[in-house]
């Protein structure tokens, strides 16, 4: 029997919906502050900083960060870590633009690493949609959830 087989299975949450209920609006004022906080001036053509793909989906998905962790039976105080983030843009994000979020958990895979011990690798997908339903950007995020209690 492998070491992993001796561990309890990860939470069975693949398919859990992360659809938002609120409309996310990219404020021109906030976009300007965000751009300057990263060392650049905001664009003059009405496009928002592309990092709003991450911000908009995180803020307006149907869960807080702590809530998403809780869905995965993980306490946010135990320190989730970002593993990777992928974005596919169909169109630019715009200041003043209003967006809805849809999404779902794709998988939670339990692994054992030399550095972190037992961990769950959470992969979830979120999309920002125009209010007419068109998808503007789709993102897959991977978080590492260290399972200290299973070391």
């Amino acid at each position: 029997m492998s070491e992993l087989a001796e561990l309890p299975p990860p939470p069975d949450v693949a398919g859990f919906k992360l659809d938002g209920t609120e409309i996310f609006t990219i404020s021109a004022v906030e976009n300007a502050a965000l751009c300057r906080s990263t060392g650049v001036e905001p664009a003059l053509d009405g496009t928002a900083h592309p990092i709003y793909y991450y911000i908009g989906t995180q803020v307006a998905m149907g869960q807080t960060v702590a809530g998403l962790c809780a869905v995965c039976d993980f306490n946010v105080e135990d320190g989730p870590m970002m593993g990777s983030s992928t974005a596919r843009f169909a169109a630019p994000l715009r200041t003043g633009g209003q967006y809805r979020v849809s999404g779902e958990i794709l998988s939670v895979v339990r692994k054992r690493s030399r550095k972190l011990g037992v961990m769950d690798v959470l992969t979830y997908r979120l999309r920002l949609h125009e209010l007419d339903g068109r998808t503007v950007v789709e993102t897959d995020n991977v978080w590492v959830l260290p399972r200290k209690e299973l070391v």
Partner: protein
Amino acid sequence: MSYAIGDTLPPFVVDSVSPAAMREWAVFLADPNPIHLDVEVVKAKGLGDRVINQGPINVAYLINMLLAAFPGGRIESMEARFLDNVYDGDQVVASGRVTAVEEGRIACDISLDVTGRGTVNAGTATVLI
């Protein structure tokens, strides 16, 4: 402007990562995780002795590098892997290299490095030009 495989992109440099920006991003992200705000929490968790930059800010530095390298271009896709933390006061350098050139589309390898410590983010991007 023409591009060729192997071209290096002009670097985007942040001389000193700012804790004030981290406080702003806690609001942008609606995520008040104290490891980005309170150095005592970072120490208590054994994560170092400086506050830790939010991961999406590091991705924003990579985006800034791409948008400066391709004026008028638009990011079609990108992937960033998080390899290590960036801390308050770090100097970071976002850089890239062209890996493929098609009609209207450039593919690049991208990375974010902390001066003196090495690569903290690595990934790929395609930009429509």
